[in-house]
């Protein structure tokens, strides 16, 4: 039997890596990917706990996450394209006119 703790620990690490990725990378696409990774980590944790509790609702949640992620990625990429298609670099730090 798999201990749920290991899987969740894996999810935690994935979550952590994703979070760090959002913060350290300047490429908005990679940041977005990292965020997706965080979502995935959450989905993983849900599934692991669902397995542990023999409860389908965790899996339903994971399904919702996947579905939502698809919609979000669609919108997100559209925004990124709209913002960056004229720029020379994919650099999030360039998009910082609004501040103060």
């Amino acid at each position: 039997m798999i201990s749920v703790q290991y899987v969740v620990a894996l999810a935690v690490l994935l979550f952590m890596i994703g979070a760090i990725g959002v913060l350290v990378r300047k490429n908005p696409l990679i940041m977005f990917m990292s965020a997706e990774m965080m979502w995935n980590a959450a989905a993983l944790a849900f599934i692991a706990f669902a397995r542990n509790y023999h409860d389908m609702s965790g899996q339903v949640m994971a399904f919702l996450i996947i579905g939502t992620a698809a919609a979000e990625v669609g919108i997100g990429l559209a925004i990124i394209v709209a913002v960056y298609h004229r720029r020379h670099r994919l650099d999030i730090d360039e998009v910082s006119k609004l501040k103060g």
Partner: protein
Amino acid sequence: MGYLIPEVLLAGGALLALLAVAMLPNAKNLGSWIVLLAMLAAGVDAASMWGVTAKLIMSDTMAIDKYSILVTEFVLLAGASSLLLAWNADRFGAELPPLMAISVLGMMTLGTAANLMVVFVGIELLSLPLYILAASTRTRAGGEAALKYLLLGAFSSGILLFGMALLYGATSSLTFVVYPAITAANTWLLWSGLGLVLVGIAFKLAIVPFHMWVPDVYEGSPTPVTHLMAFGTKVGAAIILLRLLAFGFYGQDGSWGTLIGYLAVLTMIVGNLLAVPQLNLKRLLGYSGIGHAGFLLVGIATHSVDGANAMMFYLLPYGLAAMAVFGVLRLIEGQGDEVTLSDLRGMAYRRPWLAAVLIVGMLSFAGIPLTGGFVGKFFLLQAALFASQPGLAVGIVVGTLVGLFAYLRPLQMLFQRTEVSAKVQHLRWSVAGAVVLGVAVVGTIGIGVYPAPLVHIVSQSANFYWLTGG
């Protein structure tokens, strides 16, 4: 299912509007009319449910009670006013009404949420249209706003989701209204899950230090969208925080109350403080929104029925004041997207009624008597003191004081005698704008002068603690 007719109406309205926009591209405002009517219908239907006894529906994932009805009405007001602010303006795109309807649907969902899944879906349903709408005018600022909102939103949703996962792990249930019944244990897992979820919600509610997207996104977004963010999102995020803490965690005395209290004070002060030097009016309102989020948190932090009521109450005057100010903003900006303080010069002489509306709205933000904002702050203070938390009361006062600088400066600009700004001179009234302003002013003053009915309604709806038999 009968309890969800408002949601269904709104979703149907959104789809119908989408269809209309696609099929009849030349029918002006058709989508807006459809959504507006759907919103009205939803509002009426929700109001007709007022006598309902609180209950959980849909396998305990949704709670129908007076709070949910109130939230429905509030967010419909937010949605309708945003829609009216965007009336007749082609540059926002024809898809704006259905997108707004979907966003409002998300907010309504949050109002009923008793389950983490619903919370998640509601938040995403709320956010995704706003990402689009923020960029819908396709200006550079709009794009930047949308990108910032999107990236940070995705990031914070990740945190929220992970927190939910941890809560699920700690309690084996996603229906948080049953938490008090199934777990008496205060485990680290439970609390870290709660912490992460709080971060996720706090992001939406714009709590310091999770607030930083707010001013930028507000500034960059088109004004009607900003208004929806300022009013609707705040209602949704606030109610979900209240639901989660007051339904799921009300047994855990003190701990989260103190945390929320610290956050509240920090938010009130930082938000209002940073509003002080702003010159862009929308940005100023963004910071002001942060400050008001802090006030809202006070209600939650008191960990009492009073506090919850006070928060509920505060949402409406806040929203009405936002309607007033954003409405004026919308009229001033015309075809542009940016209104600075100097654009207000001389308005008191050239456009006295519009100036009066702005004054009423700003004074309500500042919490001056005879406006709803004052009664709201009073309610919050009362709740704080009943909960024996004078620190929160002092926080409210300090926050308000700091905020005064921010709210008074625009008002002083109105009375600039020497020169009248070009935007004021070329300003044109619109019927839709007038409707919004009228409702806002009448509501703000009405609540300020005779708050008894609203107080009564809000107090009546405070029966959710008994929902779970806890």
